[in-house]
């Protein structure tokens, strides 16, 4: 019961925070709302039996990626942009987006409504870090290697792109 209630509350928080995030004029504010959204999402993960992922969501998304965003925004001293839903021109621009999104939403709703398995409940389940680790490093060892290479390439790429002045590249590249 508590868990269901928590799910809806957290879901609502996530949606509202995201909605606010994507409409902010000021990128810093957007990042703050997004961090909120990720916090809610992390708790949802915990609720859905993924404690490790919840922690990682916080550490990686909130603690690293968003910090990186913030860092870039501050470093470039980006001023608040005009392109929000506030002003006239941009408001018109949102109309096709809304339509498209609405269509997609309708499709999804229909799809889930038609699918009988959708009504089935998600059970309470818990994947301990140990289980998770075993699965990760046993069954997906190769994938881990590939991903680590991908990370390495990303680090090198980021380093290369950001080369002219900044010797130290975005630290996030190494994560």
């Amino acid at each position: 019961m508590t868990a269901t209630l928590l799910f809806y509350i957290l879901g609502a928080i996530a949606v509202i925070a995201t909605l606010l995030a994507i409409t902010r004029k000021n990128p810093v504010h957007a990042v703050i709302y997004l961090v909120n959204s990720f916090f809610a999402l992390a708790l949802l993960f915990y609720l859905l039996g993924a404690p490790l992922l919840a922690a990682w969501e916080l550490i990686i998304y909130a603690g690293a990626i968003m910090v990186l965003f913030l860092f870039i925004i501050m470093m470039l001293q980006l001023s608040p942009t005009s392109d929000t839903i506030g002003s006239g021109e941009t408001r018109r621009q949102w109309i096709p987006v809304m339509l498209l999104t609405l269509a997609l939403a309708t499709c999804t709703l229909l799809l889930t409504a038609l699918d009988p398995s959708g009504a089935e409940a998600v059970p309470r389940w818990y994947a301990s870090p140990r289980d998770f680790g075993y699965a990760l490093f046993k069954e997906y060892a190769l994938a881990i290697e590939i991903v680590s290479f991908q990370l390495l390439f990303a680090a090198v790429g980021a380093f290369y792109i950001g080369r002219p002045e900044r010797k130290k590249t975005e630290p996030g590249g190494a994560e």
Partner: protein
Amino acid sequence: MIVPLEHLLILATILFLLGFGCVLARRNLIMILIGIEVMINAAGLTLVGASAYWQQVDGQILVVFLMAMTSAEVSISLAMVVYLQRRKGSIDVRSFDEMRG
């Protein structure tokens, strides 16, 4: 039992669509990247939900890969943002129109 699966899916959809809308509508590179992050997280939510639904750990592992990928993507794209800002003095996508026909 927590919630019906479809609720979870709908939540993920809403989040995804919000991110999607953001990517389409905003012209600020940073905001577009934020939109992408939102979409990826929505996907992650689906995966975790699925993992819980089937009570298998694989979904969660996919999320780990997702996170790793996101990190890579963000580092590269933010580096590009810095680069573009340096070149154009702006991160408005409209200013990157050199190949316009």
